[in-house]
């Protein structure tokens, strides 16, 4: 068993455990923290796949950004209502059955897939390649993403603004 194999199993366990915790814990605040853990674990998965740049993005943008926004939102709503917000689940069995069915459905396709090819050796600096792609063929896509982010900001502002 190589170090990588051990690492994968550890990370996978952490990721799945914290994911389950996100959807099961009754405390909303804790759920957010578990989400942060799951996102960090995902980042570590990226590291296992030799993508340090994406690990950084995941950590900063995703785990940092998303979790901060969510915490803000929770605190804002809790301040408005003046009490702790708990969260409960509904129809847990139904949800579990449907989610499991979807998983089985996906596995049904995965099992028959020809995926035996081994991992090719890492070639060159992927970070630089990403950068080149972003300003090369994906430049227009990137610009469109910029518009999207501005528009999302505009929309979020519209809702969050309390004046009028």
């Amino acid at each position, binding site marked *: 068993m*190589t170090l990588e194999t051990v690492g994968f199993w550890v990370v996978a366990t952490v990721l799945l455990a914290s994911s389950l915790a996100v959807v099961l814990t009754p405390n909303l605040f804790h759920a957010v923290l578990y989400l942060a853990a799951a996102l960090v674990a995902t980042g570590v998965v990226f590291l296992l796949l030799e993508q340090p740049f994406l690990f950084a993005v995941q950590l900063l943008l995703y785990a940092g950004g*998303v979790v901060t926004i969510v915490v803000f939102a929770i605190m804002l709503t809790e301040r408005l209502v003046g009490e702790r917000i708990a969260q409960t689940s509904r129809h*847990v069995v139904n949800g579990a059955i449907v*989610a499991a069915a979807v998983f089985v459905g996906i596995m049904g396709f995965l099992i028959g897939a020809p995926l*035996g*090819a081994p991992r090719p050796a890492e070639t060159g600096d992927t970070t630089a390649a990403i950068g080149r792609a*972003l300003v090369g063929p994906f430049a227009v896509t990137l610009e469109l993403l910029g518009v999207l982010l501005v528009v999302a900001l505009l929309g979020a502002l519209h*809702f969050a603004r309390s004046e009028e």
Partner: protein
Amino acid sequence: MIGLPAYLVLGALVFSIGLFGVLTRRNAVGILLGIELMLNAVNINLVAFARFNGDVAGLVFTLFTISITVAEVAVGLAIVIAIFRVRRTVEADRLDLLRG
């Protein structure tokens, strides 16, 4: 060596757990967290495929999905706050003025 299928199964599991959260959570913020997990599974898939295919486009794709997710969450939370202001609840169960 861990092969590609392991990563894909991991992704599928996270996706299903996220879906489970979306289906069962009452609190709108909780549902959002479930959606986050589902999108996270997408990223695991993309990076794994990119690495095993030796192709950079998947990594670029990951960057885009991460950014779009953040934008989506921002809008979603703003809607949750707006709904909280008028209805004083974020329990998605109780928001059923519109139906039929």
